[in-house]
């Protein structure tokens, strides 16, 4: 696979080293295509453990594809990243109807209650992605509609 093949699904709208903005179709293969980019972002931000950063961004992108855009490839996800002096900020946006993060069951407070709630709602098992993201990133903010999320990681001075 060549470098261009690896990024074939991504439409890059801003390619500055400290500010990248791209669009991608709602397919899980783009998560793999973004791995290399996330590695480079971590290096530029001086983050030694890129694994956790990638895990958090991957979870949000996977949610945008599955729950936001319902895997409809005609709908795009928009991924932006800005490197500031003291922080890394990711913005991930989908074209879905959005959701209310405060109304989503938090399995870290009642894991088995979460299992029952998801079974009752006819959802597949899961629900741990947001817990992981909140434990990895320093800030997780949603817009009112719930289809745009900002992830912030403060950098060590």
């Amino acid at each position, binding site marked *: 696979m060549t470098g261009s093949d690896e990024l074939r699904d991504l439409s890059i709208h801003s390619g500055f080293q400290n500010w990248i903005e791209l669009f991608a179709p709602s397919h899980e293969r783009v998560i793999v295509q973004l791995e290399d980019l996330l590695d480079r972002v971590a290096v530029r931000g001086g983050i030694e453990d890129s694994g956790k950063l990638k895990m958090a961004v991957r979870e949000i992108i996977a949610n945008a594809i599955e729950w936001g855009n319902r895997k409809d490839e005609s709908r795009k996800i928009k991924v932006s990243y800005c490197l500031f002096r003291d922080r890394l900020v990711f913005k991930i946006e989908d074209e879905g109807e959005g959701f209310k993060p405060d109304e989503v069951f938090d*399995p870290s407070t009642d894991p088995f209650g*979460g299992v029952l709630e998801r079974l009752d709602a006819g959802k597949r*098992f*899961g629900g741990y992605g947001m*817990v992981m993201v909140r*434990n990895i990133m320093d800030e997780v903010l949603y817009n009112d509609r719930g289809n745009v999320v900002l992830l912030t990681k403060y950098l060590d001075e």
Partner: protein
Amino acid sequence: MPEGRRVTARRHGEVAIFQLRGALDHEAAAEVIEQIKRTFPAGRGRIVLDLSDVTFVRSSGIGGVVQISFDHELRVVGAVGDVKKTFELAEADRILCFVDDIDQALASFEMSG
């Protein structure tokens, strides 16, 4: 574990031991759950989940493991390094029973009667 198979199962008395390879994601967890249903069609069973050959864990896979522990008596073995760390980040380590190896898992079932 035979090449190409993500999940293999074997029995040790009344305990079913499932070994995963590669990614523990939604598909792998769903496959284990299906095999568990076939192994214990009447309901609750004793299960060891061996993650020593797992290289990558997705949150959806963790959800599957938690569901297994909800429905059955579960011991998780072989979770080390990044695999264990992922369970910790999801805070699922607080409710799952991790033990070092299969022998310890089997012994813990015997101790619990």
